[in-house]
């Protein structure tokens, strides 16, 4: 199957990469900080060794783009509390299993006998619910605009099928309020490498406030080395020319209007609410709650649980790392107390987390 790698190899072409690095060097004149706000970018930047190719003036910051990392401990505590109930099955994506709550994690509960199953799709969770009609099956919905439509479609499907023992605990979030908040709080960001997958759903319009209000450019980027380097180049040009706008580098996937069907599905099931972001606190209008009409699928409303008091981890500076104020190396715990084998904060758990990516690729 020689054609199989099409759309990947071209974007990992050494010569094109070399050419882009040269162009970046030519126009890089002053110190700039560029922030990526998608965990996929964080991971790709470190995996391909991109920082080692860039001139030293360019500082790449990782923002709050890893869904697991910004998920509050209270959410984990609630899911853990559900998992301790005899008649509950937790059907979850794998990356949530090791995330520490205040005193436990799904992984620990599983070893104590909780029924925690890893699924690759919300539809698998609904299937588990149909196969176990006497159990309550809870799917923890996390992630941004990328994953929220999938959860919404799952809920709609469960209603159609009449799967009454299926529930979602939503911690879904939307990205723009956090991006605006960072600049508003004074974090020095000269340009955003904007999230490719989120934008595939939302389109490019959601970022228009950022150049308009704050004079910071956004380039929506793909995930391959050529994509990321080209996006950096485009941001540098915006900075040099003082022409701040939202540009799409990831044109082969992202349309300015987004994915209308997915947006409608999301809108149908979720409504905007204030939400808690780990390391940030409450960000107004940044969360997605399940609408009243779909309330019977809302685990928060339908399942009682004794949730322990949430205790934040001490010493872990995830919050400042998620805001781009500090880098993983600046954390006292990084690499000694907090490792991928024994993570303290969720930024070390998820492979999209900045601490995890730095620990594995850039220690």
């Amino acid at each position, binding site marked *: 199957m020689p054609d*199989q*790698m099409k759309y990947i190899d071209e974007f*990992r*072409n050494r010569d094109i990469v070399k050419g882009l690095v040269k162009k970046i060097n030519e126009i890089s004149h002053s110190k700039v900080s560029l922030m990526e706000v998608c965990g996929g970018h964080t991971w790709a930047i470190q995996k*391909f060794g991109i920082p080692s*190719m860039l001139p030293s003036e360019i500082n790449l910051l990782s923002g709050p783009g890893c869904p697991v990392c910004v998920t509050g401990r209270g959410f984990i505590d609630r899911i853990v509390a559900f998992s301790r109930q005899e008649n509950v099955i937790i059907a979850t994506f794998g990356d949530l299993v090791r995330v520490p709550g205040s005193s436990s994690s799904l992984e620990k509960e599983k070893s104590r006998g909780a029924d925690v199953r890893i699924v690759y799709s919300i539809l698998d969770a609904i299937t588990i619910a149909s196969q176990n009609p006497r159990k309550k099956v809870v799917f923890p919905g996390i992630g941004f605009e990328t994953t929220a439509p999938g959860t919404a479609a799952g809920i709609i499907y469960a209603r159609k099928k009449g799967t009454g023992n299926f529930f979602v605990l939503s911690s879904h979030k939307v990205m723009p309020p956090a991006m605006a908040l960072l600049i508003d709080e004074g974090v020095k960001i000269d340009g955003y490498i904007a999230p490719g997958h989120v934008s595939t759903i939302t389109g490019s319009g959601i970022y228009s406030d950022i150049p308009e209000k704050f004079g910071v450019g956004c380039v929506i980027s793909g995930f391959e*080395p050529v994509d990321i380097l080209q996006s950096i180049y485009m941001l540098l040009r915006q900075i040099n020319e003082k022409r701040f706008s939202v540009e799409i580098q990831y044109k082969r996937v992202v349309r300015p209007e987004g994915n209308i069907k997915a947006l409608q599905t999301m809108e149908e099931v979720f409504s905007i609410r204030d939400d808690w972001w780990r390391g940030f606190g409450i960000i107004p209008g940044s969360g997605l709650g399940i609408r009243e009409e779909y309330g019977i699928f809302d685990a928060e409303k339908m399942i009682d649980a004794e949730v322990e008091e949430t205790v934040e981890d001490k010493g872990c500076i995830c919050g400042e790392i998620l805001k781009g104020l500090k880098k993983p190396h600046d954390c006292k715990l990084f690499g000694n107390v907090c490792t991928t084998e024994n993570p303290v904060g969720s930024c070390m758990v998820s492979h999209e987390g900045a601490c995890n990516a730095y620990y594995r690729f850039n220690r």
Partner: protein
Amino acid sequence: MMEKNILIGHGSGGKLTHTLIKEVFFRHFDNPLLLQQGDSALMKMEGNRLAFTTDSYVVDPVFFPGGNIGKLAICGTVNDLAVSGAVPRYISAAFIIEEGLYLEELEAIVSEMAAEARKAGVLIVTGDTKVVNRGQCDKLFINTSGIGELDGKYLHISSGENIKAGDKIIINGPVAAHGMAVMAARSFEGFDTDILSDCASLNGLIAGVLETVAGVRFMRDATRGGLATVLCEIAGNGGLGVEVYEEAVPVESNVKGMCELLGFDPFYVANEGKVVMVVDPADAEKVVEKMRKDPLGREAAVIGEISAGTGGRAVLHTSVGGKRIMDMLAGGQLPRIC
């Protein structure tokens, strides 16, 4: 007349056990040492150094594209001996069987084990069978132990104590096929691939290399944890570093595609027929040439070298020209891969 399924009675030590041993295990593993039927196998060994290893196999599913748990149980143990520089000779095989396993399946597994043992030139000389209640194990678990003869001049190979800066790192072919074949065989509905496990006994290929050059400093089979884990182990050994060139490491395009799709890094995915060698730079070319003459080494390649300067780290030169460290895997990438 044999039953169609394994019964608890097949593990009782009574008549059913004897029938099973005779009609399945003896028939396939057939050799004079096994047929002595004593409580221990009694055998003669040349020389005075032995290599001894053991491994348990719990792969899920028991049949996967390119092999099954039985073939794996032979290859894995043969390879553990061979990469220590030993010549594998004798194998023990212990079976823990779940009640209800189809006898047909057991026989298919056992016959492939026998075939692989013949191919590798080892004798299965002793064994054990236990049957547990349904649900108390998953179909079939196998433990094999192996004994090999070790020439004193290869004592340094398993510890890697002679590794020096400048040594070349060689692999005998494309990585990550086993892990992805097993992954594809697991319940992925609508997921159809032609990926085959690379499961194979490497003692022939390794013996060929050892006969050709004197400069083999270290060998390890890159199984669970994949190539990256072996490279990290080498890097952690005595403070030397490892430099690896991503584009030099062979990966089949279908394996690469599946890894991309499912988010796996092929460097961390399990292999069952790959040996990583560290050799004297003067011998590197000869080793690659020799390997390439063997069907199991056609795509052998130099993938990196030992360096003095990276302070016990493995550094990867990425295919796009970047540089980063390569770390050991934390936790399992895939449970029950072998």
